């Protein structure tokens, strides 16, 4: 059964910082990296992107690659300028207090349970 971002955010206790109007998107897989060119080269459309990067350029990457959402982990602060850019581009930013490894692990189990 497919689940959208809203259901995913509830289940994994992620806070939605931007793009609330796009929480009906259905994510397909995820990619975890803090290297922007790695994401540009290897992430696929509709994936979730787990990262500790929280500067403005992540918005352009998510938008250009048509990723379903960015998950900023480890409680990294996200600046006002980044939030504004994400809102205007319709980019969903989800926020997690826990580190990348734990977030990815939970997400992996969640996405695989859905596929069963």
């Amino acid at each position, binding site marked *: 059964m497919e689940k959208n971002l809203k259901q995913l955010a509830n289940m994994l206790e992620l806070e939605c910082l931007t793009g609330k109007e796009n929480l009906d998107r259905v994510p397909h897989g995820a990619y975890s990296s803090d*290297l922007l060119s790695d994401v540009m080269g290897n992430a696929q459309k509709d994936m979730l992107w787990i990262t500790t*990067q929280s500067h403005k350029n992540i918005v352009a990457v998510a938008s250009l690659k048509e990723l379903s959402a960015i998950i900023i982990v480890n409680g990294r602060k996200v600046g006002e300028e980044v939030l504004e850019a994400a809102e205007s581009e319709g980019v969903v930013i989800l926020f997690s207090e826990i580190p990348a490894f734990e977030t990815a692990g939970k997400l992996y189990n969640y996405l695989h349970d859905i596929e069963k």
Partner: protein
Amino acid sequence: MKMQYFIQGGDFSAGGRASTEVKSTIKQFNIPPDKVRRIAVALYEAEMNVVAHAYRGTMNVDLRPDFIRVVFEDEGPGIEDIEKAMEEGFSTASDKVRQMGFGAGMGLPNIKKNCDEMILSSIPGKGTRLEIKVVF
């Protein structure tokens, strides 16, 4: 259809703006979505190279019914060894730029993978010219 953009070296905050605008423009035409995404990746990487390495540059887009050609020209330090620069993992980016997640040495390889033609030339100490073409 022709479009020109100015790119300011060192301005990471505006980095990606030109590529994002071109992407929204070309999306309006009947170009296959996977081609649009490939063009977007190539343009973003090239734009960020100008931001990360050059003082200033321009991006000239020439959109035709059957292809898109984009030329980046910058004033900057140029590239000493183009063959080396094309190697995956090689980068001359500063620590500051690397901390932002750039400078992984994947930019030029990503451009090459996402376009049909790529012509890169440079005069060290003067600047760099990059021409990319994607056929629809």
